[in-house]
């Protein structure tokens, strides 16, 4: 009589369940990020700098870019855009600032997370320079003016005439490294 008639089948089924755990835990999160980055779903924009447009191809219309700021409820910050809206010609490069202040009595590290609405505009909105690419370290009650350089691609669909850029500011909870204790 051979060892156990169920061994092969049970082995396969256990392997299947382990593989599905690995799929859920290891494969899905990176896969999700890749899909979001490619398609711009969830209003996700580029998370690393892109170079400025070179062709100087410029659209024959203007669109409105609105700037929104949200502070995560657990963060003691003041965080505001310098201007609320800009009239933008797609293809041209623009610069604006967000102003953040650490309202707490201790040094802290902040991180901004961007989101673009409508999400179908996300992949046409490019950031050449953005404070959201890095974390910012603040001394107690320090204020910083943080630059954002961006352009909108000229082939933005005609149906979109307003793009809303929203930043949510988080306290990362990390200990600042380079801030002196003065």
């Amino acid at each position, binding site marked *: 009589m051979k060892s156990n008639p169920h061994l092969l089948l049970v082995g396969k089924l256990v392997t299947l369940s382990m593989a599905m755990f690995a799929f859920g835990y290891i494969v899905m999160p990176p896969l999700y990020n890749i899909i979001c980055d490619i398609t711009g779903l*969830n209003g996700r924009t580029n998370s690393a700098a892109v170079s400025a447009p070179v062709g100087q191809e410029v659209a024959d219309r203007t669109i409105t870019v609105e700037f929104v700021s949200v502070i995560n409820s657990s963060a003691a910050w003041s965080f505001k855009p310098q201007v609320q809206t800009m009239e933008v010609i797609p293809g041209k490069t623009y610069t604006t600032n967000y102003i953040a202040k650490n309202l707490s009595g201790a040094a802290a590290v902040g991180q901004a997370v961007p989101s673009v609405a409508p999400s179908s505009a996300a992949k046409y909105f490019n950031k050449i320079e953005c404070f959201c690419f890095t974390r910012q370290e603040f001394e107690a009650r320090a204020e910083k003016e943080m630059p954002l350089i961006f352009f909108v691609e000229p082939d933005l669909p005609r149906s979109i005439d307003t793009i809303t850029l929203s930043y949510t500011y988080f306290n990362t909870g990390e200990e600042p490294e380079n801030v002196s204790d003065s």
Partner: protein
Amino acid sequence: MSTAAAGHHEHDDHGPAKGWTRWLYTTNHKDIGTLYLLFALVMFFIGGGMALIIRAELFQPGLQLVDPLFFNSMTTMHALVMIFGVVMPAFVGLANWMIPMMIGGPDMALPRMNNWSFWIMPFAFLLLLSTLFMEGGGPAGGWTLYAPLSLQGPDSFAFVIFSIHFMGISSVMGSINIVATIFNMRAPGMSLMQMPLFVWTWLITAYLLIAVIPVLAGAVTMLLTDRFFGTSFFNAAGGGDPVMYQHIFWFFGHPEVYILILPAFGIISSIIPTFARKPLFGYASMVYATASIAFLSFIVWAHHMFTVGMPLAGEMFFMFATMMISVPTGVKVFNWVATMWRGSMTFETPMLFAIGFLVMFTIGGLSGLMLAITPADIQYHDTYFVVAHFHYVLVPGAIYSIMAATYYWLPKWTGNMYDEKWGKIHFWVSTVFLNVLFFPMHFVGLAGMPRRIPDYNLQFADWNAIATIGAFGFGFSQLIFVYVIFKCIKGGAKATDEVWDGAEGLEWTVPSPAPYHTFEKPPAQYS
């Protein structure tokens, strides 16, 4: 020990061990089936008690009985208990009892693992329920445990996650056992297409469980590390995305809702032919429909998330894929109706529950079709309309099928007929109160009443009061069920081996009550 005797007699029926350790150490599929069913019955009343707390608070607008945090943990716990503690264990219990007897096998393929699968469950639920008494209370972010809300709860969250891990391990072990039993233990000559549909639906359900429960385990493990070990899977500040949790959860969650209904389809496919005294109409199409539903369940998950801001193409895909499920489900409903067509029907309690299932499950299916329409769903999303929908498919769907199965096979299990009069009273009282309870939820939902909120606008007051009356009526009428089962175990008219006039299948060829060991010698009719 009776080893000497066992060597000499082929039909040595030594019966169960004596004393309470019989239940602790048992590897007998009938004992374990009984344990699962009793566990589900106890949890049914615990989860039902939670539902009554919810309905009592919602009897009137304003906050009267419980504080909102406790209300939220009641809605969360009610769902977790009913899904993982009632419907799933009850189906596994029925599988344990019936599958070996239906396929002519002596026991489950892996009896020791079977014992483990069961005995993990009480500890998992002790862990889950104990969080209600911990500092900060139990989980209160909904049974879906959406991040980031669930991550803002008290530290007792770790216990919730571990209890879900344990339930998952139990379910996966039980499923592996069922698949191994069905593939390896069938009577000689019984082909897959000769198996009863209950066995077929459970085979497909077991594969669904093995495929998606580990995904849930992965999702809650991510919640655990996000909450306690500083990872950022779902934390936007660290580069994660809370919407990703919803995708992973519903990739588990949608197959899960079919896990809760496919075995019910199998039960109904056993009962209706018996009491219509006709073979099941379209056996092969039933098998293929079940397999199609299982396949489609993997590609429709985002219909739970129409409001997260998906692109139009995604919403269209998930809308049409979801609507496609109504095709195989419709095949099943029409097959059942065709089975009854011109049959010599009688209406014993199991048949009443089966017909109740057919009618009311279809109501839930139709409201599901409404919810699948993306533009309409944006209004229905997270309202009581959704609550009405899934309670119509789960209570007169899954729960009624379990009750039908209990009445149907109880004479085989105990050897006694149950009390037909009280069985019928149980059905009619339950059905009336159930509709009083859940039907008004459609109205308040369409008018905009949100789910999971302890207070509501005055305009919803009348229908909520009526629903609460229905809830208490339905809840207390389940005591009749317990009474009938208890009375049947104690005694009653002796059941014949065949029990039902038109019953077909191997389980009716063994004596009533079914002896402790059945089919030690495989049945011959298939070889």
